[in-house]
């Protein structure tokens, strides 16, 4: 699917552009090639990082990409969206030593991007088609990884996606300076080149496609639906123009909004990584001001410290220990301010309310769980948080034919965690079928 070039997200450049060959080789040469390497252990997909890096150093980029994809089929998008500071790079021995660590993400991008260019010879040849077929629900990273690995082994894999675009959060939700939607879609097309089919605009449970129909027609079903709508604050004045859900706004910005739109004063509610993303995006897009409102202290934020540091550098203000209690609108219904109360231990302190003027308020306090889908499949259970229950090593649910993984199981982690889940489910199925 071709996206228009003048989308708002394209106003933001890559913060970490692809390495040139000489840059990649220079960084690859620095890698110590640790034995029993800590970076591998820090990667949820356990990519053999020193091996792929040394292959870059030797000029074997194709082999390098293969080492990556053997463990992580979405190694390209992960190279761009992974919080490497918290994962592989954070555990690089150079980090502990106080030296600049190896830029593992950027090296991974170099190898995967170069080896999957359209002009390059195909990296993988899918095996002959076997008599097994799997339906996957949701075209995000978990399903794409699962479907891709299955298709390479000759299993028919078809993904049903309720949105008009595939790719899940990689397409709709990643900060543009990390990954633009068109690059996410290129990766989807690459997975499709293994024979994976994607039907967009189809929602399981609606659109006459029930869980039972899938169970009848397929040998297995993988649920990789991620999370639902943005959670609302539930305070007066929230419904109406100017107050948006964070992920909904990001999706609009990435896929639909046109460049040239001016951002005024923005308030972002929340302290997680989505909140920081929205704040940084607005700041970089030229908002008059960006203020984050978080109900606890900065130390307690669930967003990564390195991301918040970046946000501060870009001009984002943080109001700690403040909780929205309402939105203030003009007589015409336009948003003029957010009303907040000071908090202590996350609880409002009466009589401390004040207003922060704003033209846009993005609410980033979480997303709903798609519980309803579970009821389509007998035996599939939901935990107290509303997440699907699954065995983390295999993706198995209470229904022998149904597997699941990604955000709908873990409640919202990284793309790389979703890929690991999808891959593990594919490996479980392939092993069970003796492929």
């Amino acid at each position, binding site marked *: 699917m071709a996206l228009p070039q003048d989308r708002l997200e394209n106003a933001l450049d890559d913060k970490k552009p692809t390495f040139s060959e000489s840059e990649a*080789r*220079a960084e690859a*040469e*620095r890698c*110590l*090639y*640790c*034995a*029993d390497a*800590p970076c591998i252990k820090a990667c949820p997909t356990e990519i053999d990082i020193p091996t792929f890096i040394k292959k870059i*150093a030797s000029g074997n980029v194709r082999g390098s990409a293969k080492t990556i994809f053997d463990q992580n089929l979405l190694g390209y998008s992960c190279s761009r969206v992974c919080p490497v500071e918290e994962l592989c790079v954070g555990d690089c*021995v*150079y980090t*502990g*030593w106080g030296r600049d660590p190896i830029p593992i993400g950027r090296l991974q991008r170099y190898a995967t991007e170069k080896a999957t260019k359209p002009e390059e010879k195909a990296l993988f040849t899918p095996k002959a088609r076997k008599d097994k077929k799997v339906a996957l629900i949701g075209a995000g990273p978990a399903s794409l990884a699962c479907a891709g690995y299955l298709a390479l082994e000759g299993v028919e894999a078809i993904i049903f996606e309720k949105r008009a675009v595939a790719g899940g959060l990689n397409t709709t939700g990643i900060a543009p300076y990390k990954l633009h939607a068109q690059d996410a879609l290129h990766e989807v097309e690459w997975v499709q080149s293994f024979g994976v089919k994607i039907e967009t605009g189809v929602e399981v449970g609606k659109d006459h496609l029930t869980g039972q129909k899938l169970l009848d027609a397929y040998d297995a079903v993988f649920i990789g639906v991620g999370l639902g709508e943005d959670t609302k604050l539930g305070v007066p004045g929230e419904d109406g123009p100017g107050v948006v859900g964070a992920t909904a706004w990001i999706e609009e910005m990435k896929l639909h909004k046109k460049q040239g739109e001016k951002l005024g004063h923005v308030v972002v509610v929340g302290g997680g990584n989505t909140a920081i993303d929205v704040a940084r995006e607005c700041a970089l897009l030229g908002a008059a001001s960006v203020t984050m409102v978080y109900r606890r202290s900065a130390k307690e934020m669930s967003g990564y410290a390195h991301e918040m540091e970046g946000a501060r550098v870009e001009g984002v203000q943080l109001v700690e220990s403040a909780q929205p209690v309402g939105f203030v609108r003009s007589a015409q219904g336009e948003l003029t301010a957010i009303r907040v109360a000071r908090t202590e231990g996350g609880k409002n302190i009466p009589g401390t309310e004040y207003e922060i003027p704003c033209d846009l308020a993005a609410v980033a306090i979480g997303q709903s769980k798609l519980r309803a889908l579970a009821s389509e499949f007998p035996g599939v259970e939901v935990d107290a948080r509303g997440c699907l229950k699954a065995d983390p090593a295999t993706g198995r649910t209470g229904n022998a034919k149904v597997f699941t993984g990604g955000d709908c199981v873990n409640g919202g982690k990284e793309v790389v965690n979703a890929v690991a889940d999808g891959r593990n489910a594919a490996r479980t199925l392939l092993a069970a079928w003796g492929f």
Partner: protein
Amino acid sequence: MADLSIDFCGIKSPNPFWLASAPPTNTGEQIMRAFDAGWGGAVWKTLGDPIVNVTSRFGAVDLGTYKMMGLNNIELITDRPLEVNLREIREVKRRYPKHVIIASLMTETKEDWRVLIQKCEDAGADGLELNFGCPHGMCERGMGSSVGQEPKLLAEITAWTKEFAKTPVLVKLTPNTGDIVEAGLAAVAGGGDGISLINTVKSIVGVDLDRMVPLPRVGNASTNGGYCGPAVKPIALHLLAALAREEGIKIPISGIGGISNWRDAAEFIALGSTSVQVCTAVMHYGYRIVEDMIEGLSNFLDEKGMKSVNELRGKAVGNYQEWGDLDLGYKLIAKIDAEKCIGCQLCVTACHDGAHQCIFTGNEEKTRPPHAHAHGKATPPTPFPIGKIAGPRVPWVDEPECVGCNLCQLVCPVSGCITMQEVPGGAADTWNARVREGRNKVPGGIHD
């Protein structure tokens, strides 16, 4: 500040740093800039009948991100008219009378040598260097290394030059020979006043795998070249030391081969060089490197309490011995500093795959390999080392099995983390002593 001046068989030089005969000494304009930078002398790019060169001419071996660890060239001697070179020699000596100009020479007949030597000396050269080393191009025409590889020819041509020369004659030797001492003794026999070594090592520097042509490429073909640069330093040091400890060779030696800094130079001088010659490092970084060479060597001499570079000369020669005279009773074992360890565990892999299987990780007893010399299990140290940086990833040495080979220390990226520590060994003993005393039978031999 220590005195760096030297006297090389009568040729006085303000310091031991000379440029080797090569592209950096192609013209007078270059050499004057080099002298301004601080070089004490220069051996002029080899003179003779001008030649015609090919394109391209150089190839290199890079090591990781370090460029030109080794350099290979197929350029020949000077391609400029002799008269032009002589005019420039005259000009340089007029402007820089205290700096050394050695004319490197290569020609064929005795009469050619006579004329060439006379012209160079008339131009003011302080000395002559006979190029018997070039291993590419000129050797196919019966010159260069084809002379250096034939001791009789080498001695004979040296003797010719000595008939004509009024200035000292240095004989430049090729490393492309089975026995450097034989070549060195031939230079002495011919009456040479000094020796320069090494010239470049005969080599093919690489292959263009797309065109299937060796490198450096000249159209669709290549030829062998001469290898130089840091990669050849160990070869040069050995050949230098072999001559320096030879009783029959008393003439001074000008050391060449991969010298890039003052430390390299100090090592050459310690193994017997009077002057050192530099080429590749200058081709890489320019004449300016000499400033650090002068300063560094001077500081080093001061630090060691030596008043002159002449005190350093040959200091390490006596400690270059035959393997059979090394002490078999001397013992070292590896010690890992848990505080400095970063947990890369390269030492573990290197020891297990490339050495003697005596470095382990983890706080539990380890089964030694079946071929181990020590008995029982290897036990981790108590308390178990927990590193400041590496935490529980700090490896430990199974000391009874450690043979003190150095490999772990060599692969460790952290300086000072792994040290080799002297431990009480056996009584002093050598292989040669065992042979002399009939104690050289080791059980498990071919006839056991």
